[in-house]
């Protein structure tokens, strides 16, 4: 089912969702009040300008970046079940964050994103050291999954040994947009530079899909391409996880849905998957905020609820 004009539809959908995210929440704000709300001193200034707007923009960016990262990983690993999770980045970031929270409970929470970012990047470096420059896609994936499992067991161990900090740690590990604002948005911005790099790789990613040997005969250095793509994917994932926690399944589901919509040509797949990722996270956060106000559920819970069944369905379909 390929849509003939996916981009206008996707962009319209995203814009509608952005407006919906600004309008709805624990307190609904009518459409005509929204523009007024951006003027300082107005009634809804805090809710709109300081809270919903940065949070919505963050959902767009994080959704797009996680999805793009997923598309890159699936592109070079050449496996539909691959996602940024197979690189162990989010688990590494999670382990670093949990260590920080359990062993330094008194230290400022402001440092948490930096700690998680370092953890995520370190996990990617470990994977690189283990696999070296020229390893096959499958070796990379299996090593990554094993490492991810190792980090996850580390997290479990810490939470069992130090059960006190479970609440905060679990909340962070689910991935949430709660309490994230302009400051976090600014932290994400520099990483947007990776997006043009990803687009620049698009053509080569199409070729590597034909297999390493064919790609090589067409003038592509498969190992180098893999390294650059994965490095970009790592940067995108690590920066998002650092700010929002590991929001599950986005990197897996978004590229998949997009491939169904626009096909596998990376020049269209990459931008389209960013839109789909943004839409998914916007929906997840909107639902998480409005399902039972004033209780706020973590957005990661919502993406997992959508993502896990989709993943199962995928497993059964993939023979």
């Amino acid at each position: 089912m390929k849509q003939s004009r996916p981009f206008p539809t996707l962009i319209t959908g995203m814009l509608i969702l952005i407006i919906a995210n600004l309008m709805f929440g624990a307190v609904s704000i009518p459409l005509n009040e929204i523009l007024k709300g951006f003027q300082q001193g107005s009634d809804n200034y805090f809710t709109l300008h300081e809270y919903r707007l940065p949070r919505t923009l963050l959902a767009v960016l994080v959704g797009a970046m996680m999805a793009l990262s997923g598309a890159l990983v699936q592109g070079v690993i050449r496996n539909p079940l691959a996602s940024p999770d197979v690189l162990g980045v989010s688990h590494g970031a999670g382990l670093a964050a949990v260590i920080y929270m359990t062993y330094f409970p008194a230290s400022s929470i402001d440092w948490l994103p930096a700690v998680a970012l370092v953890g995520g990047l370190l996990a990617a470096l470990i994977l690189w050291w283990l696999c070296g420059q020229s390893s096959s896609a499958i070796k990379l994936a299996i090593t990554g999954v094993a490492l991810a499992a190792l980090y996850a067991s580390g997290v479990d161990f810490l939470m069992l040994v130090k059960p006190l900090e479970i609440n905060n740690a679990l909340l962070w590990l689910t991935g949430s947009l709660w309490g994230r604002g302009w400051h976090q948005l600014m932290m994400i911005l520099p990483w947007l530079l990776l997006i043009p790099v990803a687009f620049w790789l698009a053509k080569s990613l199409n070729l590597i899909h034909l297999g390493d040997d064919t790609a090589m005969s067409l003038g592509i250095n498969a190992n180098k391409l893999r390294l650059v793509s994965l490095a970009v994917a790592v940067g995108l994932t690590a920066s998002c996880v650092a700010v929002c926690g590991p929001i599950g399944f986005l990197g897996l589901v978004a590229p998949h849905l997009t491939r169904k919509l626009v096909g596998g040509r990376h020049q269209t797949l990459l931008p389209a998957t960013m839109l789909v990722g943004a839409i998914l996270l916007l929906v997840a956060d909107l639902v998480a905020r409005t399902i039972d106000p004033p209780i706020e559920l973590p957005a990661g819970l919502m993406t997992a609820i959508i993502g896990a069944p989709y993943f199962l369905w995928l497993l059964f379909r993939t023979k």
Partner: protein
Amino acid sequence: MTRFSSYVITCVVLLFSVITQATTVQDSKGTFTIDYQPKRIIVLEFSFADALAAVNVSPIGIADDKDPTRVLKDVRDIIGDWTSVGTRSQPSLEVIASLKPDLIIADIARHEAVYKDLQKIAPTLILPSRRETYEGSLKAAGIIGKVVGKDSAMQTRLQKHKTIMMELAKQLPHNAEVQFGVARDDALFLHTADSYAGGVIRALGLTNAETGRDDSAYRQTGLEQLVAINPEYLLIGHYVTPSIIDKWQNEPLWSVLKVARNKHLYKVNPNVWSKSRGIVAAERMGQDLIKILNAK
């Protein structure tokens, strides 16, 4: 200058200094200053609601996990109705903003990440609540009293609290060993000597059980460890029924415990004993203990 005009000036200056007198206290983030008496207060932990109730101040919003019964009945009776602002772990900043508060009281353990956002909504007093000791919670109540402009009322209330606790202590057997814990489906957490409940137990002239070297307020404990600790009295707040304690009672090892042999296992309300952590809660706990320890 005539004498009359100098009187007038003195009076005006005095009046002015009274009106604009700013209160300054130390909170978990440094100095907190407020120069008016807050009328629209939002609290993000139960212990702060308890402190406000102690001086008859009603918050307009409480992070009550959307379950008003989690706030102590004695506290509810004093403060009346309020608006829920969501969970204590992730309170809804939109609802907080929509209530237009003029003071927010937050918990350093839970809300440090949104401290800056809260400050954009209203002046925010940030104090420890979670894992706070009994003495610490009384100190926090004293600070809250100053900030809401009820310093003398709070000091009187704290003094009265001391008297009440001493009266309660007189009615209790001296130095009886009492241990409190909360039981979930799969785990028992003992509240140690460093916890709020541990402090209240000591304040009532009772002793804490020796829970081993661990400086944390809440300690997860297995059945074998419980046998090693072997407290005289065991008070359990059940978060679920049947909890792990109900399951343990069918095990042979359970019968070794002093509490099993002397039938000194009691149920208490975990909302009072674990979640509230305030003045009113401590008095309620004292009354619970009188009922339990004097029932022969």
